[in-house]
Each structure stands twice: as structure tokens, then as C-alpha cells.
């Protein structure tokens, strides 16, 4: 066997090995998407309940004042950005997309004269900022998939403390969330949303459109305390929800990336098989030519026997 053929065989072998790994990763990710998505759906009733409750308090007690509702929060000029990225690689453009969205947001905030403050979840985001010599204000990495609700709770407590802080060094005027929304298994969108100040759907603004009407609630102990209890929970439920959605999106992105990698490995195998075949054919052709040439040379010399 020729050297060239051996080289091609080696390449085919390694491509086949990689293909197996990619395929396995793809299948693992595919099985995790459904589980992660189910966890997102499991949080929906709670999120709905809390959103409804806040809507009810806001519409029925006209003068609720909560620091998170204040539209004119501008004391320190600091705007918090919670960025959710992946811990691992092999997720295609997943982390890249959210980081880009966060950078765009940070630039927009800077143009408005605000100072972006980063709270990063995931190793990919952390290393991105550390490498560029702008370490994030706070980073949670690495994290575990099973502990996302606890992580959400921790982050919520941290940002709530900063939002309510009196110290101008740590106080945040606004809070943005940058994560990936899981729409379907094939479509995920990296998006930045403002979380604080919360825009309460004002009853006076759109009378014409259909909006839920809330009953006249009796508040126990009173509307203000109810609001104080609900707000941090609302923030937390939003955070947990986006964390879970991002996790599901990460798995979907991994699956897609690994599918592409598997396809690529297959193309490689095919290409090298072709090359190996033609190399073998060339070798055979050459051998035949040599034999025929040798025989011709012998017969031309006039000798009868060998």
C-alpha cells in the first residue's frame, strides 16, 4: 500500500471517530432540550400568578410607590446588565449572540451617559470580559444546570440589594436582562429587556384594547406591604425564567452545532474515501503500466525465453 493511501486512510479514521463524538453530543443535547423546556413551562404558572397579582395591586391602589416602579430613577447613573451565557463551548453561536446583544446595550447606555455594570452568569461571558480587561462587576461561573432556581434566587438578592442601595458607589438606577429566549427547538432569540424600572400597565392608557380586569381586592395586611413582598419575587421569577429559557436555548444551540459538525465529518469521510480510491486506482494503473512496459521491453529484446 502506498504512502498516500495510508495517509488518506488515517484521515478517514479520525474523521469517523470525531463523527461518533459529535453524534453522541448531539443526541445528549437533543434529549436535554425537552427536559429543560419542561422546566421552563413548569415556572409559568407561578410567573403568571405573580404578574397578575402585581397588575391587581397597581391598578387598584393608585398611589402604590415602590422603588422598582419609579420611572425616574437617576441618582448614580449606573445601569446593571445581567448577562446569561454558557459555561461550555461547542454551543455554536449561542454565547456569542448574547454577548453581542449585551455589548450593543452597553454601548447604547454609554451614549446616554450611563455606566453599564455587568453581572455575568457563565464562564464564556466571564472570560470574554476578563480577557478584554474589563472584568465583570460580579460573575457566577461555573454553574450547575440543576441549581438554576437557587442561582436565580442568589442573583435576584444581589441585584435587589444593589438596586435599593443608598450608596452611590453600588446603587443601580436601572436593571437590564440579556438572555436567550427559547421560542421553539429551532428558534431562539438573544434579547435584552429592561427589568427595572418596571413598566406597570397603566389602566388609563389603553381603554379600547382588551386587557384583564382585576377585581377589587382586599389587601392583607395592606397594599404597600403586599407590593413590597411581591416586587422582589417578581424580579426573581423573571430571572429564574430567563435562566431556564437560556439553558434550554443552550441545549438547542449545542444540538444544532453538533448536527453541523456531524455533517461536516461525514463530508470529510466521503471526500477522503474518494481520494483514497483514486489513489489506489492510480497505483494499480501504474503497476499495470510497469508490467506491460516490462513485457514489451523483454519481447523487443528478441529473447525467446526468460
Amino acid at each position, binding site marked *: 500500500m502506498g504512502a498516500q493511501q495510508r495517509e488518506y486512510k488515517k484521515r478517514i479514521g479520525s474523521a469517523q471517530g470525531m463523527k461518533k463524538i459529535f453524534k453522541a453530543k448531539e443526541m445528549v443535547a437533543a434529549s436535554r432540550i425537552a427536559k429543560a423546556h419542561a*422546566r421552563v413551562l*413548569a*415556572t409559568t*404558572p*407561578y410567573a403568571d*400568578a*405573580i404578574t*397578575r*397579582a402585581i397588575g*391587581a*395591586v397597581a391598578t387598584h391602589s393608585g398611589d402604590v410607590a415602590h422603588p422598582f416602579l419609579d420611572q425616574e430613577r437617576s441618582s448614580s447613573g449606573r445601569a446593571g446588565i445581567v448577562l446569561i451565557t454558557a459555561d461550555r463551548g461547542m454551543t455554536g453561536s449561542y454565547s456569542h449572540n448574547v454577548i453581542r446583544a449585551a455589548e450593543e446595550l452597553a454601548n447604547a447606555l454609554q451614549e446616554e451617559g450611563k455606566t453599564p455594570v455587568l453581572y455575568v452568569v457563565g464562564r464564556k461571558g466571564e472570560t470574554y470580559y476578563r480577557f478584554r480587561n474589563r472584568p465583570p462587576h460580579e460573575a457566577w461561573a461555573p454553574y450547575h444546570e440543576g441549581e438554576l*432556581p437557587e442561582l436565580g434566587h442568589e442573583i435576584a438578592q444581589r441585584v435587589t440589594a444593589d438596586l435599593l442601595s443608598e450608596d452611590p458607589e453600588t446603587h443601580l438606577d436601572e436593571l437590564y436582562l440579556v438572555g436567550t429566549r427559547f421560542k421553539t427547538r429551532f428558534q431562539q432569540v438573544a434579547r435584552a429587556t429592561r427589568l427595572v424600572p418596571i413598566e406597570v400597565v397603566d389602566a388609563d392608557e389603553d381603554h379600547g384594547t382588551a386587557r384583564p380586569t*382585576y*377585581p*377589587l*381586592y*382586599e*389587601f*392583607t*395586611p395592606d397594599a404597600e*406591604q*403586599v407590593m413590597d*413582598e*411581591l416586587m422582589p*419575587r417578581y424580579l*426573581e*421569577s423573571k430571572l*429564574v425564567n430567563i435562566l431556564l429559557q437560556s439553558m434550554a436555548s443552550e441545549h438547542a444551540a449545542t444540538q444544532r452545532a453538533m448536527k453541523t459538525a456531524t455533517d461536516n465529518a461525514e463530508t470529510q469521510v466521503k471526500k477522503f474515501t474518494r481520494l483514497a480510491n483514486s489513489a489506489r486506482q492510480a497505483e494499480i494503473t501504474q503497476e499495470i503500466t510497469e508490467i506491460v512496459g516490462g513485457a514489451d521491453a523483454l519481447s523487443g529484446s528478441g529473447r525467446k525465453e526468460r
Partner: protein
Amino acid sequence: MSSLAVTFVTSDRTVWSGSASQVVVPAADGSMGILPRMQPTLAILDRGVVRIHDESGQVTEREVAGGFVSVDADVVTIAVDRAARRDPAER
């Protein structure tokens, strides 16, 4: 006979849902019983026990720590941070 449509959720799952005849929750200013046709109420919950009497008379109890309950036209939504079984032998 009217009954209560109860949804009992924690931040990451639904603990109990169905129709009940009576619900007792640990409101911030004392234990609060909820019966059908109660006026719409939104209450903050303290640490304590949520007790749900379903229509067949069975009682479900969960230990909770903080949350809120909303009652509106016999629709009861209990949302809490954590819910634990009171007695592991139960069920």
C-alpha cells in the same frame, strides 16, 4: 354547591391543583381560612402550613415559607417560595 378552584404553585412547579371546599393559609397577620364566595383578597403569607380540604374531604398539607395568595371569584392562587411535605408518611 360552589367550590374553590385552587392552584398551588412554587417558583418551579405546581404543587397541587383542583377544586377544594376549604383552604387555610398562614397569612402575615394570622391564619386565614378561605371558603367559597369569599371577597377578592390578596394576602401575603408567612411561614406556616397551607391546608387544602378537597371535595371528597381529603386534606393536603404543605409547610411553606413566604409567598402570597390571591382569591378572586372562587379562584384561589397560592404562590410560595418553598413548599415541603409536612409528613413524609403522608400520601
